[in-house]
């Protein structure tokens, strides 16, 4: 927490070191969120790329006083929605091979362990709002109240989305085990 405040302060001064540190600290976390939202590695890469490039360029006017992690999370949420809107569809039916890698070269790929890939595949079957809620609450550590503000709905709606989403996930994963 303290480190983030120092990073924000340095970043506002135009420090490249601070940008590097923020990038290293949050890249994988934001990538995991983006994969969870988009269920497609190429789209997730684009989302994270666009967020960091915009963030890097914003240092002079950067006046964010709240939590840096929450700020970047919100950027990913908005960017993911934009991508999905632009694509004009609900995000992906996930191709099996897309889960492993879009690239033959692991250096260029997004890497995830077997359980993460299995979870992500199950997440892809949820409606977008439920998926966003589940990922933000469990992976992003956001409170239902915060998600409600982000999604412009009531807390009850968020709690409902979370409960339905989780039940469905459990059922998908149990079916997988039985297969």
């Amino acid at each position, binding site marked *: 927490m303290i480190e983030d*405040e120092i990073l924000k302060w340095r970043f506002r001064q*135009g420090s490249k070191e*601070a940008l590097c540190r923020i990038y*290293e600290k949050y890249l994988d976390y934001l990538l995991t969120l983006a994969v969870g939202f988009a269920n497609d590695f190429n789209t997730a890469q684009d989302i994270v790329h666009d967020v960091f*490039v915009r963030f890097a360029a914003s240092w002079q006017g950067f006046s964010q006083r709240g939590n840096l992690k929450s700020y970047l999370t919100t950027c990913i949420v908005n960017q993911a929605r934009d991508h999905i809107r632009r694509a004009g569809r609900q995000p992906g039916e996930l191709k099996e091979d897309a889960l492993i890698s879009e690239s033959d070269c692991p250096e260029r790929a997004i890497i995830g362990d077997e359980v993460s890939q299995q*979870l992500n595949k199950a997440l892809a079957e949820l409606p977008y709002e439920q998926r966003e809620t589940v990922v933000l609450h469990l992976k992003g550590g956001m409170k239902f109240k915060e998600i409600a503000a982000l999604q412009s709905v009531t807390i009850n709606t968020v709690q409902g989305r979370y409960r339905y989403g989780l039940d469905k996930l459990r059922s998908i994963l149990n079916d997988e085990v039985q297969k």
Partner: protein
Amino acid sequence: MRPTEKVERELKKMNFSAGAELRKQILDDAMKAHEQTKTQSAFEQPNIWRTLMKNKLVRIAAITAIVAGIAFGVTNILERGATPAYAIEQTIEANHSIRFLHIKYFDPKHSETEPKEIWLEFDEGGQPKNIRVHMPEWESPGEGPSVVVWNQGKMTVWFKNKNLLETRENNEFSNRFLMMAREADPKLAVERFYELQQKKQVELEITKPANKAEPIIVKATHLPNSPYAGWRWVLYVDQATNLVNSVEIYRLQDGEFKYEGRLEYYDYNQPIAPEMFTIDTMKESKEFIAKVNQVNINDATVDDIIRILGQPLSYRKGKETFTQDNLPERYGMVYPSYFWVFIHKGKVVEFNLGEDCASLGHIFRDRIGIGSSLEEVLDVVGQPVKTVEGQPNKWENGVLYKDIDGHKGECYYQRPDQGVRMFFTDYKVTTLGLTRTESPTNQ
């Protein structure tokens, strides 16, 4: 059935990471975007000051100017208070003779007994020359505790749990690390207050106790127009040396300042041994082997293993991982360097070492380890009762299976009477099993 709690737990652990090239590509693009928007800013002045400070002569001149500059602000504060004959420039001056420093950072969310520790050596210009950091497990739960050493741009990281040593000369990692160390540097903390005070963004409150044994307290509260608004740093300054002993950090929450962490500074200018700025994995390996040697494998139980070696990194059988409460009859306890302890019905049956254990040295009778040759093994363990060449491995005790299935160099030799079995590739030990000892009559 998978309970909801398990799904929640697994989702919390879900993790994807970027491959090295992708990581670099995004960072490069972000850096370009950053560079394109970069213009000279008033905020950059402190950096110029820092550059000037690299030159010894300029540094003396600059300190004089700073002392003069800061005096006004500090004097204003002093005029309001009693008469504390201390001004922050004294600490700035004292700081600039620092060559060595040991720092501990305590995070209240984690154990007080597990601080992050930093050792710093500065060059004549006041720039970090060597750094060592002990990262506790809470800093990076996924990777476990680690030791990082930075020597003028080159960084070496030792992941204790995996016993893995990584060298990173990449500027990006190195810069990140250097920055973290700098943030803990009291010189820069004081310098920041100076900058902010000049901009009237911080309010300093100085209390100097009459008792010389008690520290001077500098309370720096960031004002609403400060980029640090809502934060307060409390510096404890030694009256005799004017050096900072510790810094407490507070954040304004619900109308009151709540404690967020503490930096403690030790051993100002106590020379740090050069070995501190290198990583000696051998020492750790020897300590681990010494612990292994305390175990009597012939009657050791799981509890003995945990008592002596500590908790394993994981419980596994093949690729399957288990928790402590759902263990099968046979499983392995995995320790750093993939040192396995095989368990059957709660009893230890074998210590199993693969090629990752090469760093553990000659673990069997101080003469055989991973990489030992077949000749060395025969010399220590003795000749086999029979040698079978070019045939399949039938796992018979006391028999040396050489060039198994016609594969030159692949061998197997098991001596339960001596509590050892080995697999060879190219006639060199690649897997070593330390087993329970059986009498030769049982063979």
